[in-house]
């Protein structure tokens, strides 16, 4: 398929002997916003991590060659314990560069590791996340949750990615912060036409923002446009019977 950014086929993930993801197959094209929905423990975060290449899996994950991925993780509870300025946090990007050889780069689905010379200027990144340069000297621990979330997005943008992976970007942020982070996502999408994969519980995002949604509970329960995401399907996903998939050791 032309313009395919990501193709997943028969993806299976098993952690500590427990099946987390079963036979996932889906495809993401350039410029799409795919939201991943599902109850707690459905494997949403695991799916993102697997796509990033940091968890073992069976099956096939094919990223478009040379594509760069920016990852915005769910929560970083420990960061506030570390006395660190925003600028220093950005300097942590690229620290591993020297250790990565081209073959692991390819193995990781390529593009997870940026080249130093491709790092865009701090000013430009701060502008795109709607923050001023004065924030660079601030202590990370003193930021509001909304500001911190923006910094995380900015951190992912440093490597100049084409794809962004978000894990619940609005969780734990107050309402005004949520609004601003949401507006940021929309702005990034509009201005740079990122392809976005987004795990969320927030259905308003799905209806306003997504081009496709994937309902996940170990297996793919539905894969559709937001319009086709009916109440029936949602209750099936969240409230309905949750099947227990038995796993037999051999």
């Amino acid at each position, binding site marked *: 398929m032309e313009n395919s950014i990501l193709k997943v086929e028969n993806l299976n993930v098993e952690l500590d002997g427990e099946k987390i993801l079963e036979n996932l197959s889906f495809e993401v094209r350039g410029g799409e916003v795919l939201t991943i929905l599902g109850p707690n423990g459905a494997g949403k975060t695991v799916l993102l*991590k697997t796509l*990033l*290449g*940091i968890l073992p899996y069976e099956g096939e994950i094919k990223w478009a060659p040379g594509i760069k*991925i920016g*990852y915005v*993780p769910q929560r*970083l509870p*420990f*960061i506030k*314990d*570390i*006395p*660190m*300025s925003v*600028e*220093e946090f950005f*300097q*942590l*990007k*690229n*620290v*591993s*560069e020297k*250790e*990565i050889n081209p073959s*692991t*780069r390819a193995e*990781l689905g390529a593009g*997870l*590791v940026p080249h130093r010379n491709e790092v865009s200027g701090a000013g430009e990144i701060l502008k795109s996340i709607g923050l001023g340069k004065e924030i660079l000297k601030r*202590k990370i621990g003193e930021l509001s949750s909304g500001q911190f979330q923006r910094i995380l997005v900015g951190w992912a943008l440093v490597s100049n990615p084409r794809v962004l992976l978000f894990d619940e970007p609005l969780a734990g942020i107050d309402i005004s912060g949520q609004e601003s982070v949401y507006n940021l996502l929309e702005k990034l999408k509009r201005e740079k036409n990122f392809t976005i994969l987004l795990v969320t519980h927030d259905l308003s995002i799905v209806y306003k923002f997504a081009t496709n949604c994937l309902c996940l509970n170990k297996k793919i329960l539905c894969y559709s446009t937001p319009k086709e995401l009916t109440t029936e399907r949602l209750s099936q996903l969240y409230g309905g019977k949750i099947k227990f998939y038995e796993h037999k050791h051999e």
Partner: protein
Amino acid sequence: MNSQFFLSLISGIFIGGVAGYLGSLMLTKRMALVGDALGHVALPGMGLALLFGFNVSIGAFLFLLLGIFLIWLFEIKTSLPMEALVGIVFVASLAIGFLIVPEPELLEALLGDISKVSFEMAITSVIFSLLIFFVIKRIYPKMILTNISEDLAKSEGIKVKKENFIYLLSIAAMVALGVKIVGSLLVGALVIIPAATARNLSKNLKGYSLGSLVLGILSCLFGSLLFKITHLPAGPLIILTSTLLFLISLIFKR
């Protein structure tokens, strides 16, 4: 100043500095008490070294390697938290130490003795301190990122297991050096207190890591000078100096 005291002072300053620096990393990893525990793990090795007349740090290091290996092995076998496993290994080591080491050596192992530092010992302390310092400096940003989020670090291509292994080895080497200065009972303080003080005073990572290093040096320097004046045991004096600096930092806390 006599040359014996000078040798003690030099060893103390280098070891204190690198202990503080490494401590700043351990504090961000919530491993502040690990140094303490490992100090006790080193005890049987130190006792044996004193009994058979070889370098205390070598004895300590061998037992530390064994201890870390056991902790790692237990961690694979059970799902108990790291903390509990460290606890088991450290009290067991303590018990073994008490059984096999005769009393005079035991006291020296527990409290350390900087008055006996030989020229060779001082040289090895300086060399190993520098070596550990440069290793830590190299892995520092990667460890910080790993402490913030292992997933984020992995997604940046950092080999977390490898870095962790280097980090643990550095801690073992540092503890092996530190026990000579302040003894196995107090070595933990060498890593915790300067980092805690620096955290009170710093607003960024650079200030924090450098501050820990400088405070580690200052504690050993002033503590050793106090030892020279008062002839009280050096280890406790170094730790109390460090504690005093910590109390002062509370006043200036940012």
